[in-house]
């Protein structure tokens, strides 16, 4: 494109000149080609994305974030509870913890998780 072309309005040409000045080092080094190729790749990806693929990716995102969230919640809360007392819990306290419904649900969940991992081996 000839930037000195008189058809370019006087208001736009300083903008184009400034842009060209910014791009010049990239052009001189032959690196602008990479950026144009990258834009083409991004454009291809947009063309390839369809609603069912976006839905699958979105569900994957939800699963990943929900799992990370639950695990980090559990670790944070357990850490806070475990560090409340300077003494480690005694055997009786551990047994008492086992009697709590939340603990039994959590242990059941952990065992079930291992069970399903086993099924997939």
């Amino acid at each position, binding site marked *: 494109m000839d930037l000195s072309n008189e058809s370019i309005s006087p208001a736009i040409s300083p903008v184009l000149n400034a842009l060209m000045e910014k791009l010049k080092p990239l052009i001189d080094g032959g690196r602008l080609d990479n950026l144009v190729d990258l834009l083409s790749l991004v454009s291809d990806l*947009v063309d390839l*994305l369809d*609603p069912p693929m*976006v*839905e699958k*990716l*979105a*569900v*994957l*995102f*939800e699963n990943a*974030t*929900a799992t990370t*969230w639950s695990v980090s*919640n*559990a670790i944070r*809360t357990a850490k*806070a509870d475990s560090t409340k007392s300077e003494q480690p819990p005694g055997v009786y306290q551990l047994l008492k913890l086992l009697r709590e419904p939340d603990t039994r649900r959590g242990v059941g969940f952990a065992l079930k998780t291992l069970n399903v991992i086993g099924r997939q081996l």
Partner: protein
Amino acid sequence: MSKRIVIVGGGVGGTMLANQLAGKLYPEILRGEVSIALLSNSPDHFYKPAFMYVAFNLFFQEELKRAERSLLRPEITFNVEEVTRFDFPGQRLKTRSGKVYDYDFLVIATGCVPAPERIEGLKEAGDHFYQYEPARQLAQRLSTIEKGRIFITVSFPQTPNVPHQCGIAPVETTLMLDDFLRRRGVRDKVEIIYTYPTTAQLLRNCLFLQRPTGEILPSIFEQKNIRFQRGFTLKRVDPDKKIAYSEEGDEQSFDILMATPPIRAVDAVLESGASQAPNHEGWLPTNHETLQVYGLENVYVIGDTVDLPVSKAGGACHNQAPVIANNIAAEIRLGTTIAVYDGRVQAVAQMGLNAGMPLWYDYQHDVLPTPPTKLGGLLRHGFNRGLYWAVARGML
């Protein structure tokens, strides 16, 4: 003594606020100085904007709900309780089960409910997409109509400068309807008429509640052969003759009346006496900066129940929640509020079945409409299907 924060309402506003408060006040929670409870009338959380997609057979009910407990941090106590009475001077709530909850800080996040019964004949003859069952009924009708006339109306609250639910929804569904009927191959035999009332918040005789967007709508509608009419304020509907009558004296026939119905606050808020909104609509007098309720001590409001001129939508809650979380934390820690809501709302508008238009506005700026794009549509799709749940958990 421990400060009790009680949030009433398990919609997106209450849920994201509860999670953000639990994060903000975590040191106090650990020391037993603060407790957070959320009360909701349902064990399930619904992604309400998906009801609009249900009307076009694009969402199953199973996909738009999650257990509320699974969206809340474990530090939050969650109880399925419907609040029936607010005792503001006594700083306590009563629930349908007879329980009493005392609070030091209260957040009302009970949303709003469609009230088509407030317009004669609308409940009998009209359809809407703001709840699951009505949206399913509308889907049945839209899937089977072969020819005729679909008439679209929008009813605003009578409280001055308060919008209807989700400002852009009537435009979104009109464009989705056009695409949906084209896909079905019946668009040339079905006439679509989009109408807007004479008074739309501060504007008069327009097609949308903000001027810049309203000005581009005629060209969009003309390209798609959607008819449009200003100054149609729905007054009553004759279900037998299938005619909609306007306050302005017009009458229009229809085969399907796709209406944005009147809305109101929930019963407990209506009966609390805290609202002076006309027409028994129940909007709470809200400090537009701190989001406290005027005239009440230690009470905040988030989402649809405010009387502010911003959209009654999740995109508003998303910006209100951090303000309330910071203000309650600051009241506990510093004895004063510190954060200010600037009226910001953001969303990705669904402009037809495939295109999307990201948008934002605040008290000072209107939406600057941009051309809807495929990428915008995919962004909205990704939000509907996954990102939303991270937002509700307070992660985004």
